[in-house]
């Protein structure tokens, strides 16, 4: 270090940290509603533009203003950007959470804090570097007005970090120019704040730190996008015309995105009128009803929601299942049960989505692992809903839905045409002697469907009460059972139509199984286990009912560790119920405290189980 690190408490200087280029995690603690979100976004984007794999996790409160909020970034040249929860750099801007934040820093790490005021002695830690920068003081000097000073303080720490981590200032300037366009004054003041922090850091500390960035290949093929935006876009591309929702965190931004893209792509040129209709429903029950009504009338329709919404939609889900009405539900999961922690992530609704509603039901579910799959599987959801005439759940979560992920650019095949399934046209109906809604003429469990307004022969009465294969009301045991058995067959047959599991196999004895946002941590864990001599094959499940490859994988391994971001091991439970694998082959590894899962949760979980002797290794 050029200058002594100002830990300010005359504690011994901590051990120097081994250099780590393009491989560290950073956490920034601020107060919500103070503009830190855009500062953090700026830094994240700058790193992205340097070509370095990076992820950002926004750990925000269920509140609008004044409470602690955090932003975590992980940089990893090899692409492991799952959350680690182990930070080498920590920016502590919120005095309410100083103590907790400082405690999270790894030994040898760097704490950046606002040294405009002296630090409480009790917050000292001998094993980390304290890098004090008088951010408030600097900004008070250079800027006018409380709001401006508050905002610029955040931008200033971005400047300081740029110096410390070796972020290219040119990129920062470029990003500010892109963001503010013609508002030259804003660009100037922001860049001034960046320079304030940057210059101060370079002047007072050895810059860059051993833990720092280095440009990589330009990220031309990549974008930064969140899953809700991608899913909303997927709904546009799938041809959905009716969306219904009731606002609920963390799904709200999905409908925001859908509307934004519709405003771009779905305006009739001549008239300025909309080729879509979004109903902000009075509640989730109504939102579900709108989706069923619209699908019944022939549109592709969807509703984004979260756990509480799915609970409220239970009755309608059963109606859609039994009356065989297509419907797409997006569950952006948050922490349950009940209201739970609306701004934390979990995979707590796996079982609910698979079996929602009273009576015997089973639903098709799709499990995207990142925003790119949110886009793809949103499209697939509509095709499956139309083909199987049933509710389909796109089961996402807050981590995927609301955080920015670095993924390959989304692509579209213009050959794609919607699979509307057995939807009869007027011509087809015209040629038929008679149409019976629930008559399985070709034995595949799927019966032809009509929509209103097309042809008098197509008319039938859609109902959630007992009906026979002709579509007539029934209370007859055999007639009822015949239809319900066929519906079961139909859903079973979907197992070969849902996207199949992604399997990385080298013939190991141990299987590792995950879905959704656990993917990154699971892949990383697999590598880490390998370095410890524990070889694992990895399977990521993408759809339910599970395809035969899932069954095969589980049976082919001595044991399988099933990763769940929920308390009760819901994925494991579903595998127990829905595959032929013996229960003792399926070992649960769980984390459910609301942060995105980390590889060390998995590695530790696996190690503990192995230590308990679930298999001889």
């Amino acid at each position, binding site marked *: 270090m050029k200058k002594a690190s100002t830990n300010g408490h005359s504690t011994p200087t901590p051990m120097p940290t081994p250099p780590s280029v393009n491989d560290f995690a950073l956490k920034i603690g601020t107060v919500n509603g103070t503009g830190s979100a855009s500062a953090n976004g700026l830094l994240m984007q700058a790193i992205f533009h340097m070509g370095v794999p990076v992820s950002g996790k926004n750990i925000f409160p269920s509140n609008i203003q004044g409470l602690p909020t955090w932003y975590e970034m992980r940089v990893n040249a090899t692409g492991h950007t799952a959350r680690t929860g182990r930070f080498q750099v920590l920016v502590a801007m919120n005095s309410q959470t100083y103590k907790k934040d400082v405690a999270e820093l790894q030994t040898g790490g760097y704490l950046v804090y606002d040294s405009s005021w002296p630090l409480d002695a009790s917050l000292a830690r001998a094993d980390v570097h304290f890098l004090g920068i008088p951010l408030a003081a600097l900004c008070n000097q250079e800027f006018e007005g409380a709001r401006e000073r508050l905002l610029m303080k955040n931008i200033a720490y971005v400047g300081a970090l740029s110096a410390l981590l070796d972020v290219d200032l040119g990129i920062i300037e470029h990003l500010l120019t892109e963001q503010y366009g013609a508002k030259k004054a804003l660009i100037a003041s922001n860049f001034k704040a960046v320079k304030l922090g940057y210059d101060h850091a370079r002047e007072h500390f050895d810059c860059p730190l051993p833990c720092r960035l280095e440009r990589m290949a330009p990220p031309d093929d990549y974008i930064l996008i969140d899953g809700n935006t991608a899913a909303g876009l997927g709904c546009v591309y799938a041809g959905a015309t009716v969306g219904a929702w009731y606002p609920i965190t963390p799904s709200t931004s999905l409908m925001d995105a859908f509307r934004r893209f519709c405003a771009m792509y779905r305006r009739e040129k001549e008239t300025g009128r909309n*080729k879509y209709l979004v109903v902000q429903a*009075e509640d989730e029950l109504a939102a579900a009803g709108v989706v069923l009504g619209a699908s019944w009338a022939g549109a592709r329709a969807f509703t984004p929601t979260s756990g509480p919404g799915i609970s409220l939609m239970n009755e309608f889900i059963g109606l859609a299942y039994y009356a065989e009405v297509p419907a797409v539900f997006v569950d952006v999961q948050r922490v349950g049960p009940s209201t739970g922690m609306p701004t934390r992530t979990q995979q707590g609704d796996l079982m609910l989505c698979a079996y929602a509603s009273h009576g015997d039901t089973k639903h098709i579910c799709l499990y995207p692992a990142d925003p790119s799959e949110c886009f793809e599987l949103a499209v697939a959801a509509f095709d499956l809903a139309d083909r199987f005439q049933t509710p389909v759940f796109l089961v996402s979560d807050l981590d995927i839905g609301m955080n920015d992920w670095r993924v390959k650019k989304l692509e579209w095949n213009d050959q794609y045409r919607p699979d509307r399934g057995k939807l009869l046209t007027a011509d087809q109906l015209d040629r038929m002697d008679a149409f019976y809604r629930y008559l399985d003429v070709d034995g595949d469990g799927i019966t032809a469907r009509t929509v209103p307004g097309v042809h008098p022969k197509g008319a039938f009465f859609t109902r959630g009460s007992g009906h026979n294969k002709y579509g007539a009301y029934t209370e007859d045991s055999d007639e009822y059972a015949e239809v319900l058995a066929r519906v079961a067959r139909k859903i079973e047959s979907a197992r070969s139509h849902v996207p199949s599991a992604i399997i990385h196999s080298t013939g190991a004895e141990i299987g590792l199984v995950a879905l959704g946002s656990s993917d990154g941590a699971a892949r990383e864990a697999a590598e880490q286990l390998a370095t410890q001599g524990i070889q694992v094959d990895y399977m990521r499940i993408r759809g339910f009912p599970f395809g035969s490859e899932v069954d095969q994988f589980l049976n082919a391994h001595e044991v399988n560790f099933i990763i769940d971001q929920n308390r009760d091991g819901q994925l494991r439970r579903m595998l127990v119920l829905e595959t032929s694998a013996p229960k003792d082959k399926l070992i649960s590894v769980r984390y459910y405290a609301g942060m995105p899962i980390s590889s060390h949760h998995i590695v530790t979980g696996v190690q503990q189980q192995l230590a308990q002797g679930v298999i001889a290794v």
Partner: protein
Amino acid sequence: MTTSIPKPKVRHPGLPVNQIGLTRRDYEGAMSTLCAGCGHDSITAAIVRAFWELSIPPHKVAKLSGIGCSSKTPAYFLKEAHGFNAVHGRMPSIGTGASAANRDLIFLGVSGDGDSLSIGLGQFCHAIRRNLNVVYILENNGVYGLTKGQFSASADIGTKPKKGEPNRNPPIDPVLLALNLGATFVARSFSGDKEQLVPLVKAGLAHRGFAFIDVISPCVTFNDHEGSTKSYAFTREHTKQVVEMDHLSVIDHDEPGPSDLVPIRTEISASYAPGTRLDVAMHDGSTVRLRKIDEDYDPTDRDRAYSYVRSAQHKGEVATGLLYLRTDAPEMHEIENTVAAPLAMLPFEELCPGSDALARLMEEFR
């Protein structure tokens, strides 16, 4: 796109046919399984008549309902129309979605007082707010018929059940509620008064927006006894028609209305003294002719209509007729500024932005 299927002109020789060659039989449905004498069956008959008289092609109609004896009735009319028997109280949201998907359909919703005023109250109110383009008939009998006669939220204070204590909770009056919330067509009638009901249903069909018709429809099995305020006897005695109405279809055959709906001429059943008569042009080109029976009444003033209905109640009267009509409020599609063609029928090519647009869009995320 949809094809309009012409019906064979004569299917039941001897029976009178309408403009599109259909007899009244063609507008009927399955046999009713309701109790003999149930008010709901009379409403079914009025619906059949109204659709027939308007020569509406049945397959252009979407019949919607919730759950209850009343909600069963869509099975008993317009067998060539699609129907959706939703879950209890949730028909308005199904209707909202179906209308969003296909604005060319003609929507008829049938509900009960339990279905709309208890479990479905929220959805009912919000459908009004959206001015959903539907004829919404509430078959109001003051009880939950299908679950054997518990009081519903429309039961009046003091009305007596067959057994047990009189009701002590104040009623929710759907007509007042609809007026309060700004419904654009508010009517009340009585299942026993077909003369009044048929033109009301027709006018409701001509209306663009939420056409609400509360029909007192006695439940002979559970709420037609002495002491009930929803019995045939009580209703006959206490209803008072305050606005007489006729629905006059356009005569000009060269200019059919929207949505394949070709209105025909109907007889004008009453001739009015000038001055009390008011003709209102409907969006489909037909005319609703109102005649105030009570001088005090103004069916175009929402607040006065409200006050009038209230003061009638204070006098123990149930005001009936087309109580309020407003034709210039936008319905959901106008509020949402959607294209003229049904969304469900738009070709995929018009909906999917394609790969080039996506490639361009991706730059935004860098």
